[in-house]
């Protein structure tokens, strides 16, 4: 499993501040839901694809991967609409969701995690009034992105180890024989990670990144 989201390029889309990109994404969502006509939705889809492939110069594979990931869901949704509404509504619904999925993919592929996290920290800043440290929220999000592939890789290794010893890796039994050792490994990992955070000055984390150091 990979979470290789950011694709480094020197494009205007990459240079646009993360906050503006997220705002544009929100605006696009509002547009395709408040003006659900075929020209608007098709125009938005073409614009998003052009922005991603031509302006941001992202590989076709990036958008292709996102499309494949939701293809079955979109197909099922379209089939459901054929049964309960009509072809036009089904087409609009599918194109609308595809547009938003691809737009989100363009934003994530052109924005570094730190920039995205910085926006989230800014949005969370009012929570300082109730004692929440926005930098900690940002760190949690960054760590989730970092550790999801690692834990997935470790689960894969455990399954391979079970299979090598003739164990079942499928079904309920396979799930339980994978989950227990995985949980143990994750807890051990969490302990070492907490030590590593301490060793790298997590206690010194400022209220705002780049701002004055917390007392």
């Amino acid at each position, binding site marked *: 499993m990979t*979470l290789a989201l950011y694709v*480094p390029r020197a494009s205007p889309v990459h240079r646009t501040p993360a906050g503006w990109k997220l705002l544009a994404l929100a605006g696009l969502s509002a547009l395709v839901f408040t003006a659900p006509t075929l020209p608007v939705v098709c125009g938005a889809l073409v614009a998003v694809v052009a922005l991603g492939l031509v302006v941001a110069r992202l590989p076709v594979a990036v958008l292709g991967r996102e499309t494949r990931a939701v293809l079955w869901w979109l197909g099922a949704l379209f089939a459901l609409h054929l049964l309960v509404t009509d072809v036009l509504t089904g087409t609009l619904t599918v194109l609308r969701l595809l547009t938003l999925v691809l737009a989100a993919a363009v934003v994530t592929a052109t924005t570094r*995690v730190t920039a995205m996290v910085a926006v989230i920290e800014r949005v969370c800043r009012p929570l300082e009034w109730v004692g929440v440290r926005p930098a900690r929220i940002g760190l949690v999000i*960054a*760590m989730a*992105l970092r550790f999801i*592939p690692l834990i997935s890789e470790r689960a894969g290794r455990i399954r391979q180890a079970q299979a090598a010893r003739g164990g079942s890796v499928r079904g309920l039994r396979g799930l339980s024989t994978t989950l227990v050792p995985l949980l143990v490994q994750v807890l051990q990992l969490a302990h070492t990670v907490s*030590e590593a955070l301490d060793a*790298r000055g997590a206690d010194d984390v400022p209220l705002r990144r*780049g701002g004055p150091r917390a007392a």
Partner: protein
Amino acid sequence: MRFRRETAAPVADPARGIELRGVGHVYGDRMVLADVDLHLTERRIGVVGANGSGKSTFARLLNGLVMPTTGAVLVDGLDTRNAVREVRRRVGFVFQDPDAQIVHPTVAEDAAYGLENQGVPAAERAERVAEVLDRYGLAGHADHPAHLLSGGQKQLLAIAGVLVMRPVRIVFDEPTTLLDLVNTRRVAQVIEELEQRAVVVTHDLDLLEGFDRVLVIDGGRVVEDGPPDSSIAAYRSLMVHR
């Protein structure tokens, strides 16, 4: 009238080195370290011992990740119990498993993490990260996902993430255990070239070549302390007769 009580910032004196005074450590009811009295001033110090001998706890005492149950650990004159933040800034720590140490999704972001915590301005952060990644051959991977690096590259990133914070001393806890021969040599070379003073806990006796001093820990006690040749000979003898 109320006066705010000012706490004087502790002043470090690098000439004092690391002092362990009557240090003991107990986990639950198990004694892990006992009666450790040491003064560590050498440039390269190795620590060897069997699994479960107390080496890792010893290493963690040196930068305040573990506090002594008895006695005191003083780093450059700073007591880890009441100046732990300053001690951790002075003593970097490299873990055995780099996957546990890398906390950000991409290489450059992870290298910058410690500097963010120190409140280093963004421009200086970028400059220092670029410099350290270049030094360890990771510049071309700056924007790559950290989990896609090889084991050796991950360990180099873990070391880079510590060095970029410019600590005075570095503690390595079995830095080559998970590496192949090529990467073990690379990490050994990195340790050799460090400007900082280093304490290296290891099972790899070749890594200790050229070190100034080697401690042998067994059953939670320092049973040998001297130059590498005599300490390693004593360690081998200890393991053979077990």
